Structure formats: C-alpha cells, structure tokens
C-alpha cells in the first residue's frame, strides 16, 4: 500500500447554491502520515472530506492526488483511484448482509475473485465480530457494529488515501483504542490518512499534522512538533480541549 500526496488549494463550496460553507480552504496530506482536522460543529470538516471524495462540487480551487489534478473526477472515479471514505453518517447497505457489504467494497477489483476472497478473509481476521455476523443484514447490527463494518469495507481495497470522519464516535473505548492503533499502523505502512475527530486529544495524539478549521476557513495548521513547540498553537489546542473538563 503506497500512499500518495493529497492536497487541496483554495477550495470553496456551497450547498443549495447560496449557502457558502467552505471559503478558500487549503490542506496537504502526506503519505505515511495521519493528517488530523479538528474544529467545532459546523466548521466544515465533513464538508472538506466530502469535497475531497467528490460528493460535492467545488466553486473554486483544485484537488490534487499524487500531483495529478482530480478536481473533475466523479466520486466513484476517485474511489477507483484509491480513495476510501468513511463518512460521518451511516453508509452501510442496510438490506445487504455483512458479507455482501464487504463484497461490494471489493467493487474496484470485482473481476479478481481470488483477491476478493483474500481481502474479505483478511478483513474478517481484523474484525471478528463481523465474521460472526457475516450473514445478518447490516441493519441488524448495533450502531457501533455498523461503524466497524463501514471502516472494514473502506479498508478492504487497500486504499492509498483514507478519509475518516469521526470513526470512533459511538464506539466502545476498548475498540476505539484498536481503531486508533489500526489507523496509526496503516499510516506507518504508507497510507495517506485524513482523520476528522471531535476527540481532540486522541486525534492530536496520533496525527502527524493537525489542521484547525473554523467557520469554513483554515484557522491554523502545523506538524505535531509545531503544536508541541509553537506557543500560540499550543495554546489554541489547549484552550480548545479545556472546553471539556477532561477528555
């Protein structure tokens, strides 16, 4: 799994023609790194991910993947290019079995039966709960189990770029630890990961680079070291986290 650099410059996005949500947002994510995005509700974090994945059309700006301009590609084409997306809201196919959900995750290489078998078996190893329930319809899974399924389905293709939108919301602490560990290890293996998370401490802990978004604009960004050393940045995050008694 070789990640590629993913970047967006000067991106503006609007819903319904007149509600501008992003204004000139820029972002750069390197292979082998986790790039974290934090910000208050409604800042536009999910919108950034949806835009990278091509579910929304941009007003201005461009998106590059490995140096190639992918702004004009449709969502499914980006998926075929190797971008995986775990959106914030539910994205399982409720009426299909767990197995079939994973199978559809293999769509990009659907002709290669052997690879499908291998990929699904590997996924089941990583997520034994899913193996247990492989024949039940996804709608019968609990909220958290559906979340595993989404993550598992996204990873089944060995994607180059992985977009995670609050992957551990509603997930038990024991498992969120596993998921963060998995995220980190995927990055260490070379994948490019963009992680949106309200769990600021965890996000900061595993990210190599952090972006803060507010009101649809870049507010601050820096590497882990910047945040550790730069006083202003440090304060910003601290203030941010101190909203919570203790996260």
């Amino acid at each position: 799994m070789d990640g590629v650099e993913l970047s967006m410059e000067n991106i503006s996005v609007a819903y319904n023609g007149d509600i501008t949500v992003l204004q000139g947002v820029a972002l750069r994510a390197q292979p082998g790194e986790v790039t974290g995005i934090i910000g208050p509700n409604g800042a536009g974090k999910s919108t950034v991910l949806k835009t990278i994945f091509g579910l929304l059309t941009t007003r201005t700006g461009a998106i590059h993947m490995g140096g190639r301009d992918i702004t004009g590609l449709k969502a499914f084409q980006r998926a075929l290019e190797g971008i995986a997306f775990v959106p914030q809201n539910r994205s399982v196919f409720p009426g299909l079995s767990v197995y079939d959900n994973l199978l559809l995750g293999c769509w990009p290489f659907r002709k290669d039966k052997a690879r499908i078998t291998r990929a699904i078996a590997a996924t089941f190893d990583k997520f034994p709960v899913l193996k247990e329930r492989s024949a039940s319809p996804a709608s019968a899974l609990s909220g958290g189990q559906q979340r595993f399924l989404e993550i598992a389905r996204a990873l089944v293709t060995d994607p180059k770029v992985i977009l995670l939108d609050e992957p551990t919301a509603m997930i038990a602490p024991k498992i969120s630890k596993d998921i963060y560990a998995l995220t980190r290890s995927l990055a260490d293996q070379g994948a490019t990961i963009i992680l949106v998370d309200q769990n600021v401490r965890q996000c900061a802990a595993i990210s190599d680079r952090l972006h803060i978004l507010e009101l649809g604009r870049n507010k601050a960004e820096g590497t882990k070291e910047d945040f550790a050393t730069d006083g202003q940045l440090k304060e910003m995050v601290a203030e941010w986290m101190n909203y919570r008694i203790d996260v």
Partner: protein
Amino acid sequence: MIWGGVVTLIILAFLPVPLFTTNLSFMFYMMLWLTMATSFNFVAGMAGYMPFGYVAFYGIGAYATGVLYKTFGLPIPIALAGAAAAGVAIGLLLAPTLRLKGVYFGIVSLALAMAMKLIISLMPAKITGGSLGLILSGANDPTMAYYAMFIVLLGALAAGTWLSMSRLGIALRAIRDDREAAEVVGVNVVRTRLKAWVMATMFPSLVGGVEAWYTNAIDLESSFNLLVTAKSIVYAMAGGLGFLVGPIVGASALYGIDQLIWRHFPTLNLLILGVVIIALMLLLPRGIVGAFAQRFSRFRRFIP
C-alpha cells in the same frame, strides 16, 4: 398574510362569474381542480401519503348524490350532504390501510378505487342506473351548482388554513418528516393520520357530487377515471406539495395550460400535456413554489 391575499383573490375571481357569462364551465372546473388539489395536499403534502385511488371518493360522491337524488328522490342539498357522509364513511372503513407505508398505501388505495367501481357496477341497475349510469336532467341548475362548488372550494381552503396552523397540522408534518421520532415524542400516528384522512376524503366526495349535479350525467367510467387522481397529483405537485399555496398555483397554472393546449392543438393535446408535465418535473422537481422556496431559502418561512 400572503395567504389571506391569495384567498381574497380567489373569492374575488370566482364569486361574480355567473353575473357575466353563461359559460361557467371554465371557472367551474377550475374551482373543481383547485379543491381536488388542495384537499389532496392534506394527505400528500401534510401527511406524506400518496393515495393513487383518490378518485374513489370522487366517484362515491358522484354516485351517492345521484342515487339519493334520483333513486330516493331527496333534494340535491341533502343528497350532497349524503355524499360527504358516504365519502367519510368509506374513508373510515379504509382506516386500517393507513398503517401501510408509502407506495403500498398508494397501490392499495388504487385497488380500493377499482374495487369500489366494481361494487357499484354489481349493484342492481334499478339503484345505480347500471352501466349507463344516472342522468339527473331534472336537477339541472348550473348556477346553483357553480356556487355549490364555490362553497366547497372555500371549505377546502378554510380546512387547509386551519390544518396548517393547528396542532393537527404540526403533528402531521412531524409524521411526514420522521414517523418514528414523532411517535416517540407523543404523536399518536394512527389517530392523527385518520383525522387528516377524513378531511381529505370529504372534499373529493363533495366535489364528485357537485360535479354530478353540474353535468347531470353520472357513469362509472368517468366517475372512477384514474385521470382524476392523476390530475389532482399533477396539479398539487406542480405547485409544490406541503405548501398551502402550492396546489393553488399548480392547479391554476396547469389547468390554464391544459385549456390552452386543448383549444389550440385539438389532436395533440394529450401529447403536449404529457410533455409539459415532464418538463415541469425535470426543471422544477419540487414544484413551482417548492423551487422558489429552495432558491430563496431565506423567504421559505414566509411562504404559506
């Protein structure tokens, strides 16, 4: 306030017509479609239900009026009241179908409309006039029928106004948005829908009855013609479901277009009507008012 203006406009437009012309039909049928589309909106727009068999109530109203007048010799006003009662009664009878969802409800109600037609056709010809139907030549009084339709229209508008402002209206919209969530915050879904349903069944029955009085001819084919449902849907949706003014705008615009087409392209009218409907839905999929509300979302809350 805007809504008050619309209602006033409607009253001013329709009230004096019989003073000026004997060609009442254009305005009569305009009122008919305004009423049908408005009351269709009670179930479709406010409760999120699509009864494809809406015509059943229209047909029942027509037949109830005809039978009561002709076979039982009752005066027209009483026959019309009977028609409303018959429509509501059948609506109540069908209440169990309200637990069905979406398309299922639609298709079942369509089946019910067909069943209703078959039942009437199986009734003795002495009562229903058999397959020829009933001719009410003795009741011919288009001006009175015109005003009867006017009153029915006003009734439908009043009901719509009340519905959109009342608690029932809020409950209905909550159900439409998220049925389960509504139930969890205390809305009795079945009972609420039943109320809207009863209101929505009364008006087409009255309309059917008044129309029968106006044309003096009742028969199965036209009383249970699916085009009646189809047009109610088309007119209401073209305007924008869920808005009070939606059906008004939709019905007046499309009815006008329909008339123009029919006059100028006598042989191609259905073709053109079809094209107009397609174009409208493709260009304004949320209807005229809905498109406006979406484009200018700031003003959305001012649209009645």
